[in-house]
């Protein structure tokens, strides 16, 4: 994902300033109950100021009321600015994306089997189910599924990665995204998204924050803040008659000032900025979340399901040794293994070839009349048949069954050997041969030891997750013994062995039934149901269309370990909200001590004892509090955008740290801040 370069920052800030004013429209203010109250208060104060200036000059100090009004407006503007800054970063990215969405001509096909008979239509006329053909140099006109052809595609517009990728029909690499460019060959694509619904469209909408809905947690917090605001409105409104009982008339601007200082404006003003910035941080990680809800859910994840292959281990296993059985010569075993693997282009096959060559000095057998039997899921073996013999290699039980079927005997030590390799985390590949001819014997030759290679640094990452209270479960097709060994080497908490696609789904459901939130990654079509079922399903951008539709996040870099970053972003989002709420509420203590004595200075001079900050005068106390309240919003914008630092630690440790920092800080900072502003106001003769 291309991120705006530094020169763009100035533009972002300028746009944010403009936006902050535009957002003063009542329609956008209505979104935020806390800031709406400030807005109405600022309006009211302004109207009263105008009235005072017009009719009652000298009734109350207009200079004071004017300053109050100005700072109340600043409070609103600062909050709008914060939101605009957060949105601005997304908008800049959306612009870049939009550039690649320029309308293109598409070569539409009426019959997908005849790719030569195309005619041109505009890309925005394409409907779901239409077929198009893309030739080299074409920008693919919409999201779709490749139905024929194979081509290299430049997806840098979406992923930012310059290396072209291969897209072909069938299998897990059949999805193409609108806006990407075909570099070679041709593709016939069935369009899967109508105009305006394409991935690119959605992505633009997401990064722009258009149609952004409050996430469940944000909604709950908004309700709490609205409740708190109502309580404080009640407190302030009823204060007027109580003061009247005591013989004081409180000016409305002063009451507005008290109210604005007390209601949680800090969090109220920054709440939406925090949410937008959270999405933005994900985008910087090259993850597109389809909803804010998914980002929040990421913070809540209890269980992480990770595929072993490609995520925990490197995608390929390596042959590390050969173990002959039944007195077979190890060089003979090597030769047979080599011939059986020669045509095997999988990384495992190649590693067997390499091992046979390097350690046993085997030469590549000459091309002869060789029939290659590729690996199939039903036989779970591969091998060759030539003039002399048939060689099979594969899973232990499959190969031994093959040997028995042909009347052969199994060497007694085989079972123990297979098990010991499996127990050590390796994959045993049994090699057997059947000699042709009348007295053709069948026998097991030995075992190839394939080993999984765990990616570097995985253990540390899982430890961090564990510290956060997240359990990791490795999913693998391996047998339980192998799985257990790799699980312990990688440091995951649990594993699911011999997993079939439907087992994955069952596991997700089982975890959820226990009340846990599950996150998983996937790319294949058979991952789709589980991805859809998981609370956080991260689909690889390289995956199939089905997987991408099913997940609620897409990782553009197609890095399965990205989940860990996603979880951290989710946690940070919630932490930031909590921290600023706590800060905001703790602030009120100091503000009471500043404003209340100031309000009743004339009636009950004895209450001056509560003026523990020794503020200069009533007016300066009130004004200082309002100014502090406004400035603190600006001061906390960077924190809102960056997010509270999240460290992997148990909840109790995080709580203690954040409580001291934001609760304690929230109590102390305003005492100092208000006092300083008071001193500054006095020095500048503003009060």
């Amino acid at each position: 994902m291309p991120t705006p370069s530094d020169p763009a920052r100035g533009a972002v800030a300028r746009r944010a300033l403009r936006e902050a004013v535009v957002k003063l429209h009542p329609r956008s203010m209505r979104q935020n109950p806390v800031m709406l109250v400030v807005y109405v208060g600022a309006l009211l104060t302004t109207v009263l100021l105008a009235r005072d200036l017009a009719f009652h000059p000298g009734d109350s100090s207009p200079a004071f009321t004017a300053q109050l009004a100005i700072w109340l407006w600043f409070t609103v503007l600062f909050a709008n600015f914060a939101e605009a800054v957060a949105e601005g970063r997304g908008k800049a990215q959306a612009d870049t994306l939009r550039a690649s969405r320029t309308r293109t001509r598409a070569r539409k096909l009426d019959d997908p089997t005849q790719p030569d008979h195309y005619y041109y239509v505009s890309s925005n006329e394409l409907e779901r189910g239409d077929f198009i053909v893309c030739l080299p140099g074409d920008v693919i006109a919409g999201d779709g599924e490749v139905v024929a052809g194979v081509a290299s595609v430049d997806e840098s517009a979406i992923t930012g990665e310059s290396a072209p990728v291969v897209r072909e029909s069938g299998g897990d690499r059949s999805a193409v995204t609108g806006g990407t460019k075909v570099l070679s060959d041709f593709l016939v694509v069935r369009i899967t998204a109508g105009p305006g619904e394409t991935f690119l469209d959605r992505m633009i909408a997401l990064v722009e924050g258009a149609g952004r809905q409050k996430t469940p947690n944000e909604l709950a917090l908004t309700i709490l803040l609205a409740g708190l605001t109502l309580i404080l409105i009640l407190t302030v409104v009823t204060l007027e008659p109580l003061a009247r009982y005591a013989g004081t008339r409180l000016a409305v601007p002063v009451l507005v000032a008290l109210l604005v200082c007390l209601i949680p404006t800090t969090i109220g003003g920054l709440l939406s900025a925090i949410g937008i910035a959270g999405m933005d941080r994900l985008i910087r990680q090259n993850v597109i979340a389809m909803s804010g809800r998914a980002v929040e859910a990421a913070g809540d994840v209890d269980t992480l399901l990770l595929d072993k292959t490609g995520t925990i281990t490197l995608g390929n296993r390596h042959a590390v040794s050969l173990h002959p059985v039944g007195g077979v010569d190890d060089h003979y075993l090597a030769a047979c293994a080599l011939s059986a693997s020669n045509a095997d282009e999988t990384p495992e096959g190649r590693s067997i070839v390499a091992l046979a060559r390097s350690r046993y000095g085997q030469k590549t057998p000459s091309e002869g009349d060789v029939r290659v039997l590729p690996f199939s899921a039903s036989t779970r073996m591969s091998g060759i048949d030539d003039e002399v013999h048939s060689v099979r290699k594969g899973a232990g039980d499959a190969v031994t069954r093959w040997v028995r079927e042909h009347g052969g005997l199994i060497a007694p030590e085989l079972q123990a050997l297979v098990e010991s390799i499996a127990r050590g985390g390796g994959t045993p590949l049994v090699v057997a041969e059947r000699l042709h001819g009348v007295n053709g014997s069948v026998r097991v030759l030995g075992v190839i030891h394939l080993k999984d290679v765990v990616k570097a640094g995985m253990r540390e990452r899982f430890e961090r997750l564990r510290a956060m209270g997240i359990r990791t479960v490795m999913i693998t097709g391996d047998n339980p013994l192998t799985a257990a060994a790799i699980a312990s080497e990688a440091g995951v908490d649990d594993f699911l062995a011999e997993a079939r696609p439907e087992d994955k789904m069952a596991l997700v459901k089982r975890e959820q039934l226990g009340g846990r939130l599950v996150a998983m990654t996937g790319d294949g079509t058979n991952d789709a149901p589980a991805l859809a079922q998981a609370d956080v399903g991260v689909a690889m951008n390289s995956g199939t269309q089905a997987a991408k539709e099913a997940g609620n996040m897409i990782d553009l870099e197609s890095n399965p370990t990205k989940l860990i970053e996603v979880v951290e972003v989710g946690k940070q989002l919630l932490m930031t909200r909590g921290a600023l709420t706590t800060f905001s509420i703790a602030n009120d203590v100091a503000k009471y001590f500043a404003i209340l004595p100031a309000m009743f200075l004339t009636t009950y001079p004895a209450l001056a004892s509560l003026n523990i900050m020794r503020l200069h005068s009533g007016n300066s106390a009130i004004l200082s509090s309002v100014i502090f309240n406004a400035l603190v919003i600006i001061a906390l914008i960077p924190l809102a955008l960056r997010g509270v630092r999240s460290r992997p630690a148990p909840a109790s440790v995080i709580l203690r740290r954040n409580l001291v920092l934001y609760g304690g800080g929230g109590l102390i900072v305003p005492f100092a801040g208000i006092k300083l502003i008071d001193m500054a106001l006095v020095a500048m003769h503003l009060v």
Partner: protein
Amino acid sequence: MTTNGWVQFGLLGMTVALLTRPTGAWLVGVYSGSFGALGFAERAIYRVMRIDPNQDQPWTRYAEAMLTFSVVSMLMTYLVLRLQGMLPLNPQHLGAVAPSQAFETAASFTTNTNWQSYAGESTMSYFSQLTQFTFHNVASAATGMAVAAALVRGVSRKGSAGIGNFWVDLVRGTLYVLLPLSLVLALVFVQQGTIQTLQTPVVATTLEGVTQTLAMGPVASQEAIKLVGTNGGGFFNANSAHPFENPTPLTNFLQIVAILLIPAGFTRMYGRLVSSPRHGWVLWSVMGLLLTAGGAASYYAEAHGNPVHAARGVDVVGTATNPGGNMEGKEVRFGIPSSTLYATVTTAASSGAVNSMHDSFTPLGGLVTMLNIQLGEVIFGGVGAGLYSMVMMVILTVFIAGLMVGRTPEYLGKKIRAREVQVASLYALIFPAAILVPTAASAVLPQGLAGLANAGPHGLSEILYAFTSTAGNNGSAFAGLSGGSTWYNTLFGLVMLTGRFAMMVPVLALAGFLGEQGRVPDSSGTFPVTTVLFGVLLISVIAILGALTFFPALALGPVAEHYLVNAGRLF
């Protein structure tokens, strides 16, 4: 302040601590249905009512049953008071109670407030006191306990539509908790001197030859349930200061213990039923700590006395023979420590029984009593009510602070989401609204000002205290306020009903919402609710929420009065 005074504080703490565990176990038995000693009586009652005791009610039905029962019983009391003159057991031939007074009194007893703006001995017949007030003392307490039990079920169940059966909870709470406890306590009180008779008042000739008429009545039976059910409505005007209600320092101590017994037991029951006994103890400790802080502040303020009176020649320094301090409105047998302890407990625990006159407390002593209620009746609180109010505070705390650990806030395996926050916020809003709005109105309207016994900030304190007490269903008073006017009777009645039922319904809704949820298993990422840190956090939220809401009003009442009295200003 004397060592002996602090020893009394310590003894109370120890006694309550020791009794919490068995009381909790008892409540578990009652509300989980495993007690059945009086099964025959229970079954007979259910048969008469034609209800199925095994039917599990969803929260809406539970609330409906609770409200219907309350309305019916309130209506009955209203009628009995209006027809008092025609009913039996009325040796003093007391007439009908006026309409607004009857409404307020019916509301008062139905809501477990027992605010009394009349003098019991000269207004209410034995029939009214027995059949209505004693009945409500039991029924309203059992209702509060039932709602708390329903909430406990909501928190502890998973994926359940029902939160129990209101009728069963009410009957079991009455049969297994309130009546047996009251029976025993009443007899102990009689042994110590509390009266229990249906005689007419006794006429005595004093040593100086003056006729003294001694009010009589079935006091002990009402006294016991008044305390056990945190009702607080006295037989006599002077309530537990009256020697016939609270004759000795020992009965006084037992009264305080009786007030705290069930509320304390509920924390234990809660801890056990939600499978987190430690959490129950954390709640207990938070309550205990707040109570101790209030008690110490009150004791300090009262023991130091009123500087205005000291300046006029009163020896406020206590000695072994002189009680010292501020003895206005306090009894000699209780002295300063037992009076402040009682005042703190009765306001904290929503009882409202008084053994000293809070109106005559020093400004800070009075502030403590008021603040105790304003913190939301969470410091042990009313029977049942204390627990559910505290759980509401916990929900708010968990939500605010829970976000800080980076997860959707979870409480005992339940997610706190928008609708849970919604009911908790509603709950937190209703309480200050019910206090501040009528206080503000009464502080400026002539109808409100007419009832004041004191001028200056203390007058405001009287109004504030009255609405605080009625909204908090406490029932104690700055009794100088003449609350018997139509204005106050009507407002108090409405405020009490709001403070009770408008808060119970959100509680039941919360119970329903939580019960529907599954239960998220704990992990190290779960917000901890069993730690000291959580306790500190909970105290902070309670204190800050209470302070935020009431600090301005308190500043104009007791706080201003404190500074003024110290400066020698009088009104």
